[in-house]
Structure formats: C-alpha cells, structure tokens
C-alpha cells in the first residue's frame, strides 16, 4: 500500500520504507515516461533493496520487461553495458516504466556519471539507503572491538618475507623490540601551544625508516592494552589509521572530513557500531600514520587543520600524526597546536638492545649478533647506518643471510633488492614446472628465455615502484596493481599476453617475495615505502621521461629519497658518473632557481652529503658551500627553520672523512671571515616568542638551558662546545658582532655561549634580570 501520508522526505538518506514511498510517488506522478532512480546502498543491503524492488513492481503492476535494472560494475563489461543503456536513454525513457541504477559507493556513482552522463542527467530519484537498526551506535562494543583489533594488529612486528622461510619465528613482539626513538620530554618537543589546556597533539617528523610508524604502532598497542600512558593523557581508545587509506577515498571516492571517514574505515575493519565513535572522539587517541602518503599538499593541510581544530575544541582525546621531515615546510607557522617532535638516532645501547632482542626472540644463536654489534660499534660508517631501526633490521638480516655487511645505505638496499629479486626469480623458475598454479602460464613454452632474469625483475619492479610512488607511496588496490602490471607488460607484449603475464606476475609478487605485503581491504604496498623508492630510484635513469622529470624538479620533496637512491645507484652500484654528474649539476643549479619545487629547504643537499653517492671532491665542496649558504642566510618558516637546523647540526655532528673536512673548512670561514653575513636574526626564529620585542614573563621560572633550545634554535644550542670543538670554530668575531646588537636575543645568546653548564641551569628570569632584560 502506498503511504504518502504526511511524508516530507526529500533528503538523500532513506530507509527501505522511505525508498519504497519515494518510488511510489515518482511512479504515480510520472506516467508518461520511465522514471530514473539511482539508489546508493553499501554492500550488505542487497536483500533490503530486492525486497523494495519486488514490492514496488508488484504494487504498480509493472512487468519485468518494462524495467531496466543496472548494477554498477566498474569493469569493461559493466562499462559497455552501461554505455549501451546510456545511448538508448531516449528510447528507454519512452519504452520502460522504471530505470533503476544501483551503486555501492560514491565511486560507483561517479562511474555511472562518467559512463552514462546522458542518462544520469535525467534522474528523478537519487537516494542513499541506510538501515536504522544497523546504524545503532554501540560504543562499548565498538570500543572493545577496537582495542582487540589494535592489539592483534600491532602487537607483533612481521618479518615474513624478509627472513627466509626456514626461520620459524618471523613474528616478533613489538614491545620487546621497540626502542623509544621519539623523546616525549619538554626539551625534545617543539613549542607548546599557547593554550596549554588543549589535549596532547604531536606531529612526529623523521626521515624514512627512522621508526615513525613503529612509534605510533607501539603507542596504539600500549593504549589498547592499557599498559602505560606515555602521552600523559589518561586512558584512551587508540585508532591507528594509515592516511594513505583516507587519501585514497578522498581522491577516488569523495572528499570528506577525516572524522566523517572514521566510521566508514572502522566498518571496513569489521568493527561493529562504528558510528558511535563520532560521539566519543574525546575518548579517542587518533594516530594518523604517513601524512606524506597523501599526495595532495592541500589535502595534507586540510588534515592538519582539522586535527588542530579538534584539539583546540577538545574534540579528541589526543592526536599523533607522523610524516616525513620535508613536510615541515608546509606547516603554517608557529601557532599550530600540534607540537613537532623528530625521531632521533638510536644510541649504541639501543642498537645493542634491539639486536639482542631480535636474535633472542627468534631463538637464533648469539655468536653472530655479538660480532655484528662489535663491528657496528667500531665502524663509524656502519654506526651511522645503524641509527635507524629499519636499516638496523636490514643490516641484521643481511648479516645473517649473507654473512657480510655493506657500509652504505644504497648498498644495503641493493643487496636487499638482489636478495628479494633472487627469491622471486627462483620462485618463478619453480613455477614453470607447475608448482605454483598460474605461474606456469609464463613459462609454458620450453624456450630458455622462459626463466626470468634479474633484468626481467627490474623491468617490472622499477616502473611499478614509480607508479606506486605516484599514487602516494601507500597501499594500492589489487585490481589497480594488476592493471598497472598489465600496462607495463603491454609495452612489449600483445594485450592478451600482457593480461596473462600481469596476472601471473601479481601472483608471484604476492606469494613468493617480500616485496609486496598485504594491507587491509585487499590492498598491497611495498614492504616498506623506502624499498619502493629504491626500485624507483634504481630505475629512474633508464626511463627517459622520468629521468627528465627528475632533472626538471629535483627538489620536489616527495622525490628526495628517489633522488638519493638514484644517485647511489649511479655513483656507487653502477659507477655511471656521467649521469650522476648531470644529476648533481642540475641539483646545484636548481638550488639557486626560485620556484615552486625548488624549495630552499636543503634536505636533499644534507642527504647527498650524508650518503656521498660517489661524489667528486669538487661536487662535495659545492654542495657543502650551497648548504651553508642556505642554512646561515636564508629565511624559513618557523617550523621549517627548527627542523632544518636540527638536520644540519645532525649532519655536522656525525660527518667524518671528506665531508667533515670540507664542512669544517667552510664553517671556519663563515665564522671568521664572513661572520657579518650570518643572519642570526633568522637563525633565532625557531621559538614561539621569537618575534616578541621582549622575552615573555611566563617563562621566567623555566630552565634557561631549555629556553635557549626552544627559543633560539638547535644551531646555537649545539655551537658550544660540540661544534666549536669538533670543527675548531672561532666564535670570537660572532661574539663581537652580537655585542653590537640591541635585540635581547643576542644578549641571551652571548650569555649562553660564554657561561658554564651550572649557570645554564638557573631560571630564565634570574638570568634576564642579571642581563638587565625587561620581561613582557
């Protein structure tokens, strides 16, 4: 029966009863042509849809022959069928009574729109179906399931694939291996928000492999198991979300706020009552991993803005966002409520602890590990490499499997790549004799070329890695991955053969190598983003277009690692100095050119000096000269200035050999002969109150030492005595110059450099009085 009584429903969201009513109404009103209905219903509601469909047809006595029903199928066959319906719009409107288009997502709707634009311009009814009973929010259940999910998903580190199949224990407990490489004390954290009542918000920045993801995974596990409260925010329900998932939805489905996206993401993880989370955000610790995996800078800014708003309004229990260091360039000034903190290098005792745990929990022998620890502690190159958890794990694995240790990052990735590719080629060879189902399709002929080579592997892996980087570097759907493999293969094979090979290749990549690992939602990603970047970098020079692109925009922040790997591959692995020289010359040229991607943030130059990918002495000197010029004279945003100084000081403190020699010579020159050119007014801008004409009264009782770090920046903080002693810098001319300045910061800096450690522990207000500084 038709019940139009009192209904005023015209909105998008309807339940099945309302859907039936709306269809009834349209059919009653329009009896001179077919009505076009688009019904969006997420998977699981098919039964409800069927019921409405049958009821309505029966009620209006419409035979099936006068209904055109289309269920959005985004494959080629589905596209063709829909295109045919679209072409026949006018005839269908005349002949049929009901044209029903079914979609499961906004992406489906966009597909409908793209494929059947004519038909969709004639929509009579557009609704999204939901069930009230399914939507009932149940926070206790949701909370419990979330905790269990986090504990099961993040309690262990998975080394499957990286470790040989003969190793029995490949899942190792995170809590035992975890080394805290993110300091959460006030000294390490960036400036606190002005309103200190806002909940804890952190933006953790660091270079690849420095343990950002491990940090948030450990936080998630810790709060899920209620075992500690490292953020001092009290008990919270952790939600750890990869921002690449969110980004994917923004790009491919619809633009929505992150908080609106959460219930949908939780649904996909199988959590019940997910809608309840929106009401309970103050109980939630939101852990957002991989800000850099969002491709669009606009989208990244929107996420940070949304999180800032939530924190300011107390709308969330806590937020931790991780991202690569280059993102600091995008932060919009000093008043961000997210405090910036960087991952730090592992200390010797932490390296030892990690390696011992790594061996112990796998039940392996300790002989090798003692030897490895000794070698790392003795060798400065190895020590520099082992500072990041990922490199340490790779080093340990290589040491175990190959009994040898490379001393450069590029060599570790190269060896690791060779090892993984070798495993792939062996698997594929086995496949040709029929062990692995579809793999046989590649090697069905007995031609000797049927056995894959390293070149075959690189031919596919390089472009594939580039493609995943272009997608943001995070997880990609299996269907998209296969499509891309097919596209790569189609460059040299017929479409049919390419389709066959891509299917088999995908099978191999998934099952027999550690290169690709599964993620939630039938998605795949490289085992670590940096492994994808290595293959992209190794391939770059072979791909004319991409090589050209790299040379055009070498300072594009998301290409930093690719450029570094590419340089290493050319200079260290392949010894192709012509191409390396071209790349380095371009980088130097472009470091002087203004422009969107030629950012003055000198992270790439620091990376080149750290890794020294076969650079000549002349190139090293030029890079060092440009780096010092940038750091000591250029103006950066507050957030970026702090990070740059941190990276710069880190480089100065860990360099040895040729770069240390060159950096030292140039530093001495700047501090003695060019001291007037150093822009201390810009170097002092790393603090929250740096632009104030007087120091604020609120810091009067705080430790002078910490205030200098927070307010005057890492470079000043490290000059005395570390940098001065290491590089024999004469800071006399600098002190003379500071004395001539009126700004209070120069007085504080001078006092800091010339005072003893004991004096530096005094309260800031006391020192300020001694210096005759007035507090604001």
């Amino acid at each position: 029966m038709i019940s139009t009584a009192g209904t005023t429903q015209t909105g998008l969201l309807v339940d099945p009863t309302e859907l039936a009513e709306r269809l009834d109404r349209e059919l009653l009103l329009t009896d001179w042509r077919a009505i076009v209905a688009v019904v969006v219903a997420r998977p699981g509601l098919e039964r409800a849809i069927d019921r409405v469909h049958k009821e309505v047809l029966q009620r209006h006595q419409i035979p099936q022959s006068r209904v055109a029903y289309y269920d959005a199928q985004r494959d080629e066959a589905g596209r063709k069928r829909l295109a045919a319906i679209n072409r026949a719009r006018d005839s269908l409107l005349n002949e049929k009574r009901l044209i029903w288009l079914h979609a499961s997502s906004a992406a489906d709707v966009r597909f409908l729109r793209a494929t059947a634009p004519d038909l969709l311009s004639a929509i009579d009814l557009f609704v999204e179906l939901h069930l009230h009973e399914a939507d009932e929010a149940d926070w206790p259940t949701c909370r419990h399931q979330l905790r269990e999910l986090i504990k099961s998903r993040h309690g262990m580190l998975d080394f499957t694939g990286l470790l040989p199949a003969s190793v029995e224990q490949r899942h190792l407990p995170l809590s035992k291996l975890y080394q805290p490489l993110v300091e959460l004390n006030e000294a390490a954290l960036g400036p606190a928000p002005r309103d200190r009542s806002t909940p804890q918000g952190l933006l953790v920045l660091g270079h690849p492999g420095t343990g950002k993801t491990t940090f948030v995974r450990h936080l998630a596990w810790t709060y899920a198991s209620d075992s500690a409260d490292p953020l001092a925010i009290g008990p919270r329900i952790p939600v750890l979300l990869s921002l690449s998932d969110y980004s994917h939805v923004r790009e491919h489905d619809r633009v929505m706020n992150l908080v609106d996206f959460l219930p949908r993401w939780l649904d996909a993880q199988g959590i019940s009552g997910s809608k309840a989370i929106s009401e309970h955000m103050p109980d939630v610790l939101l852990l957002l991993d991989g800000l850099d995996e969002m491709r669009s800078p606009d989208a990244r800014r929107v996420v940070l803005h949304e999180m800032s708003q939530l924190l300011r309004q107390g709308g969330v229990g806590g937020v931790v966002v991780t991202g690569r260091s280059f993102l600091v360039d995008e932060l919009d000034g000093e008043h961000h409520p997210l405090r910036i903190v960087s991952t730090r290098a592992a200390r010797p005792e932490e390296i030892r602890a990690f390696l011992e745990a790594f061996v112990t929990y796998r039940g392996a022998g300790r002989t090798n590990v003692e030897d490895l620890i000794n070698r790392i502690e003795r060798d400065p190159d190895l020590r520099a490499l082992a500072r990041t958890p990922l490199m340490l794990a790779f080093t340990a694995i290589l040491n175990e499997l190959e009994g040898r240790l490379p001393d450069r990052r590029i060599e570790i990735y190269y060896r690791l790549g060779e090892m993984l590719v070798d495993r792939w080629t062996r698997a594929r060879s086995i496949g040709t004799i029929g062990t692995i189902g579809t793999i046989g399709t590649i090697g069905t002929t007995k031609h000797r070329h049927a056995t894959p080579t390293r070149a075959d592997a690189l031919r596919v892996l390089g472009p594939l890695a580039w493609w995943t980087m272009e997608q943001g570097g995070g997880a990609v759907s299996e269907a998209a991955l296969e499509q891309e493999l097919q596209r790569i293969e189609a460059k040299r094979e017929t479409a049919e053969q390419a389709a066959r090979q891509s299917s088999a290749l995908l099978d191999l990549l998934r099952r027999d190598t550690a290169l690709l690992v599964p993620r939630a939602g039938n998605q795949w990603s490289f085992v670590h983003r940096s492994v994808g970047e290595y293959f992209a970098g190794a391939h770059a020079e072979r791909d004319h277009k991409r090589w050209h692109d790299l040379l055009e925009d070498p300072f594009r922040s998301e290409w930093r690692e690719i450029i570094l790997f590419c340089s290493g591959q050319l200079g260290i692995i392949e010894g192709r100095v012509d191409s390396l020289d071209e790349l380095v010359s371009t980088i130097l040229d472009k470091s002087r050119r203004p422009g969107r991607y030629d950012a003055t943030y000198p992270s790439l130059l620091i990376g080149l000096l750290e890794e020294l990918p076969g650079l000549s002495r002349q190139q090293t000197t030029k890079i060092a000269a440009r780096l010092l010029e940038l750091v000591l004279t250029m103006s950066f945003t507050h957030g970026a200035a702090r990070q740059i100084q941190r990276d710069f000081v880190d480089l100065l403190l860990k360099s040895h050999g040729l770069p240390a020699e060159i950096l030292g010579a140039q530093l001495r020159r700047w501090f003695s002969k060019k001291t007037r050119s150093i822009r201390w007014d810009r170097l002092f801008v790393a603090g929250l109150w740096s632009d104030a004409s007087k120091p604020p009264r609120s810091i009067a009782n705080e430790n002078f030492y910490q205030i200098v770090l927070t307010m005057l920046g890492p470079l000043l903080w490290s000059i005395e005595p570390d940098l001065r002693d290491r590089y024999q810098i004469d800071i006399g001319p600098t002190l003379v110059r500071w004395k001539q300045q009126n700004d209070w910061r120069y007085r504080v800096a001078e006092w800091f450099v010339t005072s003893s450690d004991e004096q530096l522990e005094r309260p800031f207000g006391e020192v300020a009085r001694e210096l005759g500084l007035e507090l604001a």
Partner: protein
Amino acid sequence: MATTNDELWHTGEEMARPSKELFDWWRPKLKALDPWREVQDDEIQQLYAEREGAVYSDLAAELGLAAERPADVKVILCGARGSGKTTELARLAHDVKQDFCVVQTDLATGLQDGANTLAVVTLLGVAALHATKVWSAPDTALVKLLEEPDNAVKRGATVLDKALGRFRDAVPSVTKLLESISSIVTLFDPTTGAGLATAAHGVATAGSAVSTASRLRLDLTRGPLEGRLPPDQHEDAQAVVEAVNGILHELELLAGRPPLLLADGLDKRLKLDEVALALDDERLLRDLQAPLVLTGPVNLRHDPRFRAVPGNLRLALLYNVPIMRRAKSPKGAGSNDAQVSPEGVEVLHDLYRRRQAGADLPEELFGDDLIELAANNCAGIMRDFLWLLHEAGKTALIRSARRVEQQDLHAAMKKRRLELEGYLDEDALTILKRVLDKGTLPGSPEADTLLFENFIACYHNGDIWFRPHELIVEFVRHKRSDG
C-alpha cells in the same frame, strides 16, 4: 503508459495524503514542466523560447542562401549537455522541411563502439536509403521491394553493397541494415508538416527500439567500420561515399527537393577519442552530396580541423543562456565577479510563459520571484531550469499544496546542488576554483569534461567567459578558503 491503480490509494485505514485528487491535479502540470518528456514536432515552436541569435535560424538561413550548392553546408553543432542541441536540430528540421527532404539519424543508438567515419557514412547512406523506401513505396514490405526488378531502393542497396564489398572482410549486408535502421531515423512529411516516421513510432510494430538498435550496432561491428582507416583503403572508402551520393541523388529526384542529413548523438560517445575516431576521416563527410548537420561535444571546439576554413566542417557553438554577466570593476575593466543579467533571465521567463500557456498552468502556480530564482540558479541551461521548476512542483505536492513556495524551490536547488557536489573530487575542485578566479577554462581534458557535464557554464555576453554552475559557486568558494 500505466495508469494509476485506484486500489493503491486505499490503505484500509484512511485515505493517504496528499490525496489522489491532488496527484491528478499536479500530474499534467508536472508533465508540462518535465524536461525529459518527449516533445512532439508540432509542440516545439510553442514550447521553446526563442534565443537571441538562435543557431537553428542561422543554419536555416545558411541553407536558404546556399540554394545553388546546399551540399557545401557541413556543420557540427557543439554544446554542453542539455544546452539544447537536439532541440535546435528539431527546430531546424521544422523550419526547412518544406524545402528539404530531412533525414534525421540518431547516431547515439545506431553507431557501434569504436565506429570510424566510414561507419557514419554507411549509416547515413542506409538512412537515406530508408528515406527512399518511405518516399517511393511506404506500404511495400522491404523484402518484396528488393525482389522487384528495378526500383530506387534495390539500386541503391546493390551499389552500396558493392562499394562495401571492396573491403573484402565480412561487411554488413545493406539489406540487413535497412531492416533495423528505421529505429533510429526520423523523416518529415513535407505536405502535412508532421513527422512521417519517427524513430519511436517507426518501431511500434517492429518491437523494442532499444533491441532493434542493438541489432543494428551488432551488424555494423565489422573490421572496416571500426578503428582508424588504413591509408591504402581511402580509395575504397571514397567508393562508399560515391555509392551514398548515388542514393542521395535518387532521394532528391523522388522527393523533389535536396536531402538534408541531420545526425544527432555523436556527443553521446563516452570518450573523446571515440568522437575523434568517428570524425577521423572528416573529408568523407565533406564529400557527401547533401548538407549535413552533426551534433558533437563541446570539446571539438579545440580541433583545428573545424576552424573556419572554407571547405571544412564548420563548428556552430551553443552557449549557456547568459543569465549572468561579469560585473564591472570600479576602474571599468572587466572582473570575475558576476551579477545577474536580466536579458538572459528574460529568455527563461519566456520559456516558462510558453509552457504555462501550452498546458494552461494557473497564474499562481509559480510567482515571478520564483521563476527568477530558478533562472538565476540554472547556469543558463534550459533543461536545468525546467528541472528546478518540476522538482519544486513535486515538493509542493508533498506538502499537499497547489502553489510552489520558496521553500519548495530551495529544496529542489539543494537537491541538485548536493548531487553536483557529490561528483566532485579534489582535482575537479581545483579546476573549478581556477575557473571561478579567472573566468577562463584551463586547457585540459578534465576541464573540458566539467564543461561538457555542466559543472562549468560558458556565457557569451561580452567576451566568452566561464563560471562554475551557479549552484556550486559557494561550495567552490568555501573549499577554496579551506585549501
């Protein structure tokens, strides 16, 4: 069409509201405003507003002036979706049917995927042959006609079969194509002025138009009619053109007036490269000895082949009704701020008045202020304007009212706005922001798609300028400040 089953109204408890009587009261009014109702040939003049410098009247004048060499008139009518291309074709046919033998073909349903220009020519040739049959022996069955020793249809089919046979591959039999072509061809009877055999009517006895057109597409799915034509087959293609010209000549003799080929629906190809393929050998179309007007997507305006060079196919562009104009800046220079243009709004007022008169709609159904509000928010697309009125009418019905109020129109506008917004991803928003800021269109396929899909309007008052659809302007502005 199905009639309302009275039983549906009895709930067993009480009569549902709004009442059946109210539904019956509203139905004819909504029908009059329905942008998707099939408008009969004789209603067109009455129901559609006259635009300033209407393309159809220009084309009619051009055809009149080219009396000596009408075949020189070769035009592609381009415009966004809903800009009124089909209506313009219908009005042109209506205007010139006394002087021309109009053969209108629906390429959207008749042409197969991947069709090349040769397929278009073949289809137009078979459509002309169908017209020949209708003009010479409308009541004789095709099979019988082809058995007769000598008639125009048999001659044409034989010559065209022979020309297609030069391609050796299995080419479609012209007889087979003729059997299903009626589902996509509309002819006009010059003596009565009525549609002689429209696509929809023509299939009344032949079964579903959709399935007949599917058969036609299937028959056309042959090697030579798909994909780019190899250079060594150009001569063979030219032979097909000659065969079609022979058919056109026979038709002219029979009808006593030159044929005019109207081909609608090329713009319904989904991909631009499919459109490009169908026009790839455009010289084949140029060589047809009949005037030809094709409709195409707005993106073709970038194609240098269709610039105004004598002998080329010429582009005729359909712009949005200019309901907005650029505001003058204090210094007198143009700016990208916009204000309502009363001239454009008046065109839409006129459209409503025509519909009102045609269906005897009550004066009070829509106030003038509502018509103006709908006009201001339809981006100058007549179809969107009607849709807003139609939808607002439905909302008023739900309130059990007999007069549309502002709230009803606002609800309709909101519905359309949400629908538009739902399709936009970040890339599209970036383009729309740029269009809003600059008033120009970025040179990318994505921007072209947004233009074609009516997310961007193109106005031609003063210079040509672009602006996001009026309903999403605020959304785009808001997202810009987000960014």
